[in-house]
């Protein structure tokens, strides 16, 4: 499939069923790493600019590339459901993966919580444990296997119900399900989109101190003045045979 980036035809809400096209239209990453090696900016690697970052930022961002784990907060019994959930919620089915499970685990192990807890909900740490048990509970009821043993489609079915706050029974009855969704997704998204590989995938410029930006993109929408010299334009995976 080829996609005209300007048209927005790839955007889920503009497509039937609100689902994106299969990712085969995306170019393979040529510079640096992206999750699953796909992205919209095949020649963009935030680390190309690392010599323009300040020391404190460099330290924080580079630490995210350290080999992840081992898990400190979640038990070995919880690990499969944790990984399966993080993979499904972020559509990370193949390597290279951003180590979301390990980042979430570290945050909970260190008690770096977000500063609020819904009345009637357990502490975020307990909420996570209940959610993982809940996913297994639902999977057993619906598919007679654990959540991690389900195939992608079945896991997506369960997560879809979770996102809609419709899961009931077992551990779910101890939770306000829509709020539990918000608690776990907050952590999962922050783990994924704080990772420089995700910045490569989406074409985000990354840290920008002390260099800053000169070209703010306006007025005049196109032309050389709009883009910084170090910014690479978006691209698609043009297949010359099918194109022709």
């Amino acid at each position, binding site marked *: 499939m080829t996609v005209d980036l*300007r048209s927005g035809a790839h955007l889920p809400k503009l497509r039937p069923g609100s689902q994106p096209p299969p990712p085969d239209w995306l170019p393979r990453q040529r510079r640096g790493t992206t999750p699953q090696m796909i992205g*919209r900016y095949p020649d963009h690697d935030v680390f190309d600019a690392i010599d323009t970052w300040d020391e404190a930022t460099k330290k924080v961002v580079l630490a995210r590339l350290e080999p992840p784990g081992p898990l400190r907060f979640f038990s070995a019994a919880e690990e499969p459901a944790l990984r399966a959930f993080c993979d499904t919620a972020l559509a990370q089915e193949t390597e290279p993966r951003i180590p979301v499970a390990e980042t979430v685990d570290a945050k909970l192990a260190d008690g770096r919580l977000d500063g*609020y807890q819904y009345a*009637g909900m357990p502490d975020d740490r307990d909420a996570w444990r209940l959610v993982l048990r809940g996913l297994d509970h639902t999977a057993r009821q619906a598919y007679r296997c654990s959540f991690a043993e389900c195939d992608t489609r079945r896991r997506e079915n369960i997560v879809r119900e979770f996102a809609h706050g419709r899961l009931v029974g077992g551990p779910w009855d101890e939770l306000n399900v829509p709020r539990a969704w918000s608690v776990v997704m907050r952590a999962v998204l922050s783990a*994924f989109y704080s990772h420089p590989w995700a910045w490569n*995938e989406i074409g985000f410029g990354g840290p920008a101190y002390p260099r800053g930006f000169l070209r703010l993109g*306006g007025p005049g929408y196109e032309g050389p003045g709009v883009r910084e010299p170090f910014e690479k334009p978006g691209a698609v995976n043009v297949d010359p045979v099918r194109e022709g």
Partner: protein
Amino acid sequence: MGTFWRGLLKGSVTPRDNDSRFLLDVHSRDLPGEATMRRYADDDEVDLVIVGAGAGGSVLAQRLARRGWRIVILEAGPFWHPDEDWVSDEAGSHHLYWTQKRIIGGTDPIELGKNNSGRGVGGSMIHYAGYTPRFHPSDFSTHSDDGVGADWPLRYEELLGHYERVELELPVAGQDWPWGHPHRYPFSPHPVTGAALRLVEGAHRCGIEMRVGPVGIVNGTFGNRPHCIYRGYCLQGCKVNAKASPYVTHLPDALAHGVEVRANCMALRVDIDDATGAARGVVYAREGEGGRTLQRAAAVAVAGYSIETPRLLLASTSRRHPRGLGNAEDQVGRYVMVQGASQTAGRWPDELRMYKAPPPEISSEQFYETDPGRGFARGFSIQTVSPMPIGWSEHVLADGHWGRALREYMRDYNHWATIGVLNELLPHPENRVTLADETDPYGQPVARMDYTLTDNDKTNMAYSTKVITDILRAADAQDVLIIQRFAHLIGGARMGRAPEHSVTDADHRIWGVPNVFVADGSVCPTQGAANPALTIMALASRLAERMAGGDPVEHYRAVRARRIPISTRSRR
């Protein structure tokens, strides 16, 4: 000086009695004077102890220090060293926020933490966005005029001089302002991004006027503070010193005038002398140490913001105040407010890269006041915002996307621009901060905040969300994603004309307690549809003038003579 001259002399009029901008170092972001800072002994009765080194507390300290007051600020969070402590990174800025536990309840619980509360020297403005609008004159009398909200015990005119003074100190950059009380700004508007221009185009097609600013961000240079570098990380703490926060605008001058900022010190109780009914000082704990210490003081100003100020007052029980300080009428913690802050994002064919430039760029206050045709009281303002990747992912999630759909929208990040609203949500007595059963590591009960929207609030939010969605459509956005959210705390210890309905009088003094004041955003009876920081600073500036009694020399003598340093007359 009139606003006309201020506008004309842009950039060349500077504050007279605040040297912070010159005291800052060009080569280092540290707060100058930390090493040589004056230090007081706990049993040394200082003139004033302030709880919280944020927007309100810092301005109060700077003003009164210049009048010779001996002041200690107790700050729960750290003393920042921005070059090392702050990063150009979203997740890495987690430590700037108040992340100690709080319980949120009610029908519409408000998410706290990074959304609205800071912790550390400089307070929440360290990571605020930078919008610095004034309140409108109508904000001070919504009850008389529209039958909703509350009347302030003071008028806009009483704050005007302080608004102007603080605008010079930040300094505020923006176009001439046509709304509320029309005025001009001391610095020219910043250039705007292609993303924001799309939004302005849409607004114009809808007949909505938008103006650039107002932001507390240096445009040009200001003493030793450099021009903004448009890197866009304002919500992560400005490593450039371009964005205003008390850390660069008031604390350098305060330290130079003998203020001690005692960081990592959590105030636990305002200590009341049961014999006299006056405060003796504040009991605090130093982080990582077991003991409790009383810092003695002739007067106390609480400036911990809308959750922590009520929490501290409620925890300050004594024989005279068994239900908490200032809580004889069961008013502490009530009428706490937030603003509705829905955001809509639009998609365009070109790459816009909204992460560049400060998130606050362009705003409109055209819908600020009541318009009977809209079907609800009071109104909202419109402001551009621009989330970084994690913020953007929360936006996409809120529109109902996860998994492959979320990744697809995220990959499209550079094609989007975002616009938001600030709804005036009305004060309600049941929206309240109370003490929860749980305690923090100091043994202090944690705060619980209950929040429930009223019908007026919901109608306002729905109407305004439609307005900003229409703006995107009018600008030919190809797709739209919406997130409903809230921002900006205010109230919780409001000022008023009578103790039955408020916690403090018009001079911020807690009813029935001669020497305890509230000096932060919690005193505001309403919050309009404007971001609150400038108003909090202007209120603290006015409070300083009231506390000093107007005559610095006379005051200084009074302080030396250890009389309580407050003029008790109301001079309205």
